[in-house]
């Protein structure tokens, strides 16, 4: 094996090609390989809106970006160190984002006149000077793949389809990663199709061998990637949708309650539904309703009947659920609503990410209808956030909204598998055999009423969406009662603050700029703050999971900063909430492009406000 001259904390690779090229699979396999070799990582799948976009077009380009390496990999990287482009379109749409001298590997076979034209180009970018600034490695990947799989008797078309594995073999070699997980995956997946199985294995190995044996290696071989300093636990890679699904079933187990997950497909929320369908052994049942309204109604009906109802959608579908959410608030039934946000307004850009449903979650109902809102910050964090959402819902007898987004749902990261036995049990207000409590008597601390499901002769009662008498649950139009019930609903949500952890500073120091954020911007901000700290700026990162109510100490914590910078992928929705609840003066940084924040833009925003620190500190985590 060639010696590499240097080592690097992390690498960013971007795979790009047609939807049919198997780019996402390639990315996922690389992800597993790098995780299994002990790297921290973050990924960004970036696929087109079309189910199977016409080949060779710009809008049909599917891409997958991964950053992997040593500690604190929280983003898929602003710009790739290596780009692999399977066709002209995949090359051109990614050029804008490359630094000079970036290594670009292309499938030279794909740069035919016809496909160059298909990419809306008038000349070949490989030869017309376009690529002069970059380090280009052009390989006849298609030909080499067809050649490699020939012994297995596939037709040329099918043979060509193996090129993602050929290229993966090459790339694994470049970064000194093992092929074994991919080999296992191929064995498993094509267990019943020997031809395809052997061809794919052959392609994988051929790509690897090609790298090992051709004259390119000097260029191809990359500096050794640092390993992450990992704790003594088990790790796996996980996407946000998987993590959220696991968190929900874990919460069900912790609460000793079965879940009914009632939903209706919508991008990018459907992946959660699809994952839960696969977990029905673990105490969750899934139900696909005729629409979002029926879905939330079934979930609430289920909660009424004693199984925790969970529902899920994206913005437009959540809009349809807001009336029924009000009923859940009025009847004080537990419910978790997961919103996987996407770019709006209206249908917007379903496959693009955004954080613009916070208003809807916090304020988006008729009447004074408060409910707790929590937000996940990363794929792995979805697990704990789901548990937290369930805990609040059943502890306080209230619907809870959990915000995640399309980026988190699809991205993956390395996840230290938590020890579930160490999680505290989730307490419900289900009646105990010896309870004297009435259905509408409240726990003075949580304001929760009894979760008294049908089947029990002791708690027969009626409840509904008309204002209810505070003690009997019957219809009441009484003025004082309405005030009392309004106060109870307000206090109930406020009381959550007493049961959640204090807000902490993730990283950094107080006194200068607080970067206050929520949700999926965590990774980019975390990285940006780390770099700013390393550069000696006085900055701290405050990332809020509990959106409503805020942790009790948040105001005090933020009072310790001179400036508050609120970066969001919307026009300033958390900013509104901070002004509303804490009367803060703050600076917004907003980007609404359907794309995640990049580290450099956050750094620039911080640098505008942050003072230099007296002295730089070594480990800036607090």
């Amino acid at each position, binding site marked *: 094996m060639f010696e590499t001259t240097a080592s690097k904390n992390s690498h960013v690779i971007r795979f790009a090609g047609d939807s049919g090229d198997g780019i996402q699979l390639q990315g996922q396999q690389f992800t*597993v390989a790098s*995780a*299994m070799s*002990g790297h921290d990582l973050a990924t960004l799948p970036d696929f087109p809106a079309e189910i199977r976009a016409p080949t060779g077009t710009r809008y049909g380009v599917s891409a997958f970006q991964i950053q992997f390496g040593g500690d604190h990999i929280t983003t898929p990287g602003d710009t790739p160190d290596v780009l692999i482009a399977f066709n002209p379109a995949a090359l051109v749409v990614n050029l804008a984002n490359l630094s000079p001298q970036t290594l670009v590997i292309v499938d030279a076979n794909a740069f035919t006149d016809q496909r160059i034209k298909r990419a809306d180009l008038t000349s070949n970018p490989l030869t017309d000077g376009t690529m002069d600034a970059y380090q280009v490695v052009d390989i006849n990947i298609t030909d080499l793949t067809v050649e490699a799989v020939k012994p297995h008797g596939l037709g040329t078309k099918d043979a060509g389809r193996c090129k993602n594995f050929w290229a993966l073999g090459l790339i694994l070699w470049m970064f000194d990663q093992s092929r074994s*997980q991919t080999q296992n995956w191929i064995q498993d997946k094509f267990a019943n199709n020997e031809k395809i199985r052997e061809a794919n294995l052959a392609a994988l190995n051929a790509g690897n061998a090609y790298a090992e044996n051709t004259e390119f290696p000097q260029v191809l071989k990359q500096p050794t990637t640092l390993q992450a300093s990992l*704790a*003594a*636990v*088990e*790790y*796996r890679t996980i996407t946000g949708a998987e993590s959220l699904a*696991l968190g929900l*079933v874990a919460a069900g187990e912790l609460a000793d309650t*079965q879940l*009914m997950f*009632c939903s209706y497909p919508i991008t990018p929320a459907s992946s959660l539904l699809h994952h839960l369908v696969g977990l*029905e*052994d*673990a*105490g969750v*049942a899934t*139900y696909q*309703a*005729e*629409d979002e*309204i*029926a879905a939330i*109604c*079934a*979930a*609430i*009906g*289920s*909660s*009424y*009947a*004693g*199984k925790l*109802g969970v529902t899920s959608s994206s913005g437009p579908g959540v809009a349809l659920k807001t*009336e*029924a959410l*009000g*009923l859940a608030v009025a*009847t004080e039934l537990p419910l978790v609503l997961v919103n996987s946000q996407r770019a709006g307004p209206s249908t917007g850009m379903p496959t693009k990410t955004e954080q613009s449903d916070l208003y809807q979650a916090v304020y988006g109902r008729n009447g004074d209808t408060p409910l707790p809102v929590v937000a996940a910050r990363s794929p792995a964090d979805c697990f704990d956030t789901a548990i937290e959402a369930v805990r609040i819902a059943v502890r306080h007898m209230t619907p809870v909204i959990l915000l995640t987004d399309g980026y988190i749902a699809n991205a993956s990261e390395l996840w230290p*598998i*938590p020890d*579930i*036995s160490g999680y505290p049990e989730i307490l419900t207000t289900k009646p105990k055999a010896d309870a004297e409590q009435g259905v509408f008597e409240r726990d003075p601390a949580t304001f929760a009423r009894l979760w008294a*499901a*049908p*089947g029990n*002769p002791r708690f*027969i*009662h*009626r*409840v*509904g*969406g*008309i204002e209810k008498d505070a003690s009997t649950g019957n*219809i009441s139009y009484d003025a004082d009662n309405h005030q009392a019930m309004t106060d109870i609903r307000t206090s109930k949500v406020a009381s959550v603050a007493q049961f959640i952890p204090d807000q902490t500073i993730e990283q950094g120091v107080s006194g200068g700029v607080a970067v206050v954020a929520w949700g999926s911007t965590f990774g980019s901000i975390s990285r940006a703050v780390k770099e700013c700290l390393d550069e000696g700026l006085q900055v701290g990162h405050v990332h809020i999971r509990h959106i409503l109510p805020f942790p009790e100490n948040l105001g005090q914590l933020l009072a310790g900063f001179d400036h508050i910078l609120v970066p969001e992928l919307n026009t300033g929705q958390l900013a509104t909430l901070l002004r509303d609840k804490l009367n803060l003066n703050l600076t917004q940084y907003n980007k609404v492009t359907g794309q995640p924040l990049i580290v450099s833009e956050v750094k620039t925003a911080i640098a505008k406000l942050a003072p230099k620190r007296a002295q730089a500190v070594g480990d800036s985590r607090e």
Partner: protein
Amino acid sequence: MSNLSFKDFATDQEVRWCPGCGDYSILKGVQRALADGGSEPENTVFVSGIGCSSRMPYYLNTYGFHTIHGRAPGFATGVKLANPELEVWVVTGDGDGLSIGGNHLLHTLRRNINLNILLFNNEIYGLTKGQYSPTSRPGTHSPTSPQGSVEAALQPGQFAIGAGATFFARCVDIDQKTMPGLFNEAKTHNGTSFVEILQNCIVYNKDVFDDIAAKKTAAEAQIHVRHGEPLIYGKDRTRGLRLNPQTIALEPVVIGQDGISLDDILVHDETNPTLALLLANLQGPTAMGVLLRREQPAFETSYWGIRPSQRRQKVEQLLRTGNLLDRRN
């Protein structure tokens, strides 16, 4: 089986419908049916939407859920799926169930989940003060149709058959004789039972069913159908229905006239949706009783048939699926 009387199914809440409203009689019919059928208050749930009719759960000493407009079947589906042991009833109106709530009713009927749905059809929006509804006859005068409505009326039975219903029955609000029995037929049907009750809104659509319901003309205006029995009616049981195979339509005939004998009369087959459609749409006489009853697996049975009803796998295991990087030593 409990030994309760219909009074045991009343609550302490004062009934607040307009004096003379047909809902009173239906309430009594429901309470009787529950008592007769041995329903257990603690295992019975009434789910309703919004409307005058939908207030009924507050008057029934069972579990009750007064939800939002048009969505009762959605909530009831959740209740029944979560706990298939419960006896679940849905109370809805023509506006609640067929206007805003048409889609949920449609899919509930299609799925055939074991709910008992009572549609109080007064052909008007009662609670919001009398606007015409999807079942209002064309020409109905109301605050939103002062010159008479110009929309065709939805036929609840035809709609249900279109949706693939497995059970459809009909009765009039004042018919205490058949109502409790009919409700218990609905209850014992394994699947979605859909019962249309012609209900008199004495304030906004007074006596719109008088032609059919009035005591003195009922015998000629209603035909009470019974599976396996010929479709005859009339005070002296001399009227009947026969099929015209040319037009594929039902024709009222008189036995003993024009050479018609009992043999010419069609025999009711409640398993035949086409016949049910013809009967549902029939006017003069109007068909009462169980028009359609087909055996199909109930949705909750199929649903739970392919999934575990108990937790069979611990999360601890699930967390460890796929490739693991073990750094424990």
